């Protein structure tokens, strides 16, 4: 090796290191404690341009990978809602021009795409997501850029953000009604079965607290990884525990395996029924007749008799790419776009701060297929009716229970004395 | 240490019940070109495998005072035992120089391994001279001729400073000229080392062997000089049916 190249080598290495150090030092921005001085936490000015005849919105769901199974429908119904709104004249007279992005079942991709939608495509708001992981990935990004994100799926609550609107149920609108229903059914022994991730774990933590108050004994708790279908071992434990009812927080395809193993083991809806919070009209057909007679807790069912529901079902059935049935997450996604329209029109502007201010000032409502929902301007959730449905042989739900009024959203369960105040305080503090 | 000999005593190798080598004893000394011959399945290569740790054998194989059996392959090599394979196995992607450099390199410290090679080791130059590969220094080994690959292998053994060279069919597939050159090379390097050759080529054996061991069905059939062995009626009996094969040699034939 010649000395020239040796020198060249060390020169390059030193050059590279030197450049890096110099650039890094030059690039130093705000340090902890002087955010205000550097404007660290206030976002760069928004690049959203609504001066033309259109407004750009971002749609973000997993169209590929494992979650595409569920999320594709949400994405399709958003397109339908956009088409409807456009046909009706748009928002503030501006046509919706949507940018569809694929989260690819990869949470960092959700973060990346959110940033892209906000800073490259300059969308006024983003709609979509499904898993809590995707929402948690999006949250810091929309907060950083002061964007808006509309999240359409029931979730574990204990969260709020000035930049997120939640149109799915929080726990007191789905889990707690389900527990009230169980209490009314005289359930004494409850078994908890869930997928091993955040929503079921959190939901079950809340269920256990409430069950203690209601005097329902939790006779067992089992989790299986989200991507595993085989529930035989766990169902054997359920059989041994002899519960009156099973509270099912399993998500996705694993539900099919659970119901099959349940049925195989000789458990029946007549003796040991299941109440689910993730099986809707979309999921039920994939489980065949074995899921007939089981219960689900949702706010919306296709079988609901409300003034606006028939039109919603009809439009969806006529929509290309339609799956033919409507379900709660779809309906919540449908609401989200209309809610945004109502918010913007109340604010008279697409500006995020103006929209948030309008949310606080007015009681924004929308005649949703589940009924007339009202937005809570403080916690950005909506009021919802609680419903329990029983799956019939055509995979539709017969409504067997309904809450007497719309349930106000309470993500931090502040209205429930059995929820320990110290946990709430710590959670709120941590959210910061 | 130059007078250390390779002494194999009652070597046995079994493969799940099948006795490939059943109690073979022989020795090899510096200065001689020792041949191991025998028909198919006689256990010749297996003997080498056992000595080099590739196959598990019982009995004894000593180099000087050191027992070889039971040691790991690379540890046996470090005691000075080197071998070649039936088909030349050199590093095709690397140049002749790189091949030899690796062979010469096992004494190097870990740190020096991380440095780039500068210049050519004297031992490598010497080996290149010896094997006539000096002109091919930067040729990728993959495009060498068959004979050259075999020589490169031998050169690698030389730079690795092997005291014992176990050569498995070194002239298989070689032209007559290459065989002669290889034979001369073996004679030269045997002067200071132990050279043990497994071979089918009887003609080559006759020309270059100093002593011969004939194996048959895992056992020693006969031992001695070329003339002794050829005169042995047992050997003639065994080889009767396969006389043609022995006379012609069967290059590129798989054994066992």
């Amino acid at each position, binding site marked *: 090796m010649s000395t020239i190249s040796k020198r060249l080598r060390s020169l390059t290495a030193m050059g590279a290191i030197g450049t890096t150090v110099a650039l890094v030092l030059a690039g130093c921005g705000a340090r902890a404690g002087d955010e205000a001085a550097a404007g660290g936490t206030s976002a760069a000015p928004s690049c959203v341009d609504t001066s033309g005849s259109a407004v750009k919105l971002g749609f973000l769901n997993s169209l590929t990978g494992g979650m595409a199974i569920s999320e594709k429908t949400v994405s399709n119904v958003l397109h339908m809602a956009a088409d409807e709104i456009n046909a009706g004249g748009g928002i503030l007279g501006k046509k919706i021009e949507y940018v569809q992005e694929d989260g690819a079942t990869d949470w960092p991709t959700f973060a990346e795409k959110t940033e892209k939608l906000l800073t490259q495509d300059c969308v006024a708001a983003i709609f979509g997501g499904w898993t809590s992981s995707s929402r948690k990935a999006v949250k810091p990004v929309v907060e950083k850029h002061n964007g808006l994100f509309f999240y359409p799926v029931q979730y574990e609550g204990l969260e709020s953000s000035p930049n997120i609107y939640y149109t799915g149920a929080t726990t007191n609108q789905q889990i707690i009604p389900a527990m009230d229903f169980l209490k009314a059914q005289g359930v004494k022994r409850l078994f908890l079965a869930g997928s091993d991730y955040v929503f079921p774990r959190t939901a079950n933590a809340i269920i256990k607290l409430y069950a203690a108050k209601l005097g329902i004994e939790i006779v067992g708790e089992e989790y299986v990884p989200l991507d595993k279908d085989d529930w035989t071992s766990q169902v054997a434990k359920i059989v041994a525990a002899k519960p009156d009812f099973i509270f099912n927080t399993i998500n996705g395809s694993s539900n099919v395996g659970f119901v099959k193993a349940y049925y195989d083991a000789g458990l029946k809806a007549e003796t040991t029924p299941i109440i689910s919070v993730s099986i809707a009209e979309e999921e039920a057909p994939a489980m*065949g007749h074995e899921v007939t007679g089981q219960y689900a807790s949702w706010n919306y069912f296709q079988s609901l008799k409300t003034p606006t529901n028939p039109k919603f079902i009809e439009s969806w059935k006529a929509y290309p790419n339609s799956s033919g049935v409507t379900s709660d997450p779809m309906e919540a996604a449908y609401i989200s776009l209309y809610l945004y329209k109502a918010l913007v029109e109340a604010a008279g502007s697409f500006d995020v701060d103006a929209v948030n201010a309008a949310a606080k000032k007015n009681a924004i409502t929308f005649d949703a297929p589940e009924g007339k929902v009202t937005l809570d301007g403080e916690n950005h959730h909506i009021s919802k009716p609680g419903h329990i449905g029983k799956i019939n042989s055509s995979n539709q739900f017969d409504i067997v229970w309904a809450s007497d009024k719309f349930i106000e959203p309470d993500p931090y369960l502040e209205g429930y004395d059995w929820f320990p105040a110290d946990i709430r305080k710590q959670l709120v503090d941590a959210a910061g | 240490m130059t007078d250390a000999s390779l002494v194999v005593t009652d070597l046995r190798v079994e493969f799940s019940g099948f006795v490939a080598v059943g109690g073979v004893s022989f020795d090899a000394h510096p200065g001689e070109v020792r041949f191991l011959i025998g028909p198919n399945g006689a256990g010749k290569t297996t003997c080498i495998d056992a000595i080099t740790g590739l196959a598990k054998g019982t009995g004894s194989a000593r180099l000087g005072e050191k027992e070889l059996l039971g040691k790991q392959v690379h540890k046996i090599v470090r005691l000075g035992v080197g071998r070649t394979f039936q088909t030349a196995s050199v590093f095709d992607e690397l140049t002749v120089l790189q091949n030899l450099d690796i062979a010469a390199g096992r004494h190097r410290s870990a740190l020096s391994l991380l440095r780039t090679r500068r210049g050519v080791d004297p031992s490598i130059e010497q080996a290149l001279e010896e094997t006539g590969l000096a002109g091919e220094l930067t040729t990728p080994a993959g495009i060498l001729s068959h004979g050259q690959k075999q020589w490169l292998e031998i050169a690698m053994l030389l730079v690795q400073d092997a005291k014992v060279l176990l050569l498995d069919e070194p002239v298989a597939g070689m032209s007559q000229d290459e065989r002669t050159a290889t034979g001369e090379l073996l004679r030269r390097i045997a002067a200071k080392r132990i050279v043990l050759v497994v071979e089918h080529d009887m003609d080559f054996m006759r020309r270059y062997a100093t002593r011969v061991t004939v194996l048959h069905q895992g056992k020693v059939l006969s031992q001695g000089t070329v003339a002794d062995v050829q005169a042995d009626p047992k050997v003639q009996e065994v080889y009767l049916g396969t006389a043609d094969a022995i006379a012609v040699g069967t290059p590129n034939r798989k054994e066992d």
Partner: protein
Amino acid sequence: MDALIAPLLNGSAQGALLLLAALGLSLTFGQMGVINMAHGEFLMIGAFAAYLVQQVITASNLSIPVALPVAFVVAGLFGLLLEVTIIQWMYRRPLDTLLVTVGVGLILQQAALQIFPSQGVPVEKPGWLDGQLNILGYEWPLRQLFTILLASVCVAALSAWLKYTSFGRRIRATVQNRDLAETSGISTRTIDRLTFFTGSGLAGVAGVAASLIGGTNSQMGAQYIIPAFLVVAAGGIGQLKGTIIAAWAVGVALSYFAYWTTGSLAQVLAFILVIVFLQLRPQGLFTVRTRSLA
């Protein structure tokens, strides 16, 4: 008693499903050295085939018995197509077949997602599988017994085929010495294709069994591929009896771990168990005298 019997029986059924998934691999991976990461997707194809059969034959009592051979042939044909178009060029590069088939798997998954309802489709269990068998006080689901029977039949058929038919003998000859087999007049091309067809077809049969246990959707194959490979590796390459024992052991271990710990931890522990086992016995349970891979 129940605490010991239930996991044993459940685990045996889980092992039988693993065995079904691994059986095809033990042919394509064990005998041919091809690392087919799309094997899970062939399993998925078998499950979808069962669904399609049920659309034609609506009586599920009959449709599942019909679906088994159909799934075998359909998945087998997909395998054959893969062999002819891609794998046949790669026999000298076993490790690369792994990556190529990862690509094939990705494409098949996405295609299934777009062709079928994204939530998946139902495959109905035949009525004669409803019910349980009381074994030492444990009500053992008949469906599990069916999985074990199906696996046993497949193993018996496969080993008889390998042992007693001339095709089977040729496969074994080709595996043991490809060059020699070729010179003895065996068309190794035909053998390769047939082996791959059979191996993939077995994945299809496993798919029917899997469709009775879990969901039938685009993602279903992914959960079987790694465990199936681990089973084949732990059993010893090209060793049917090793694969059987390994599958059973992994199934039972999974089941006991799930009984004692949680479902997630059971998966982790079972994986670690196999990995440690393979560290101790890199050649698997049974060693065969053949060329080692790569």
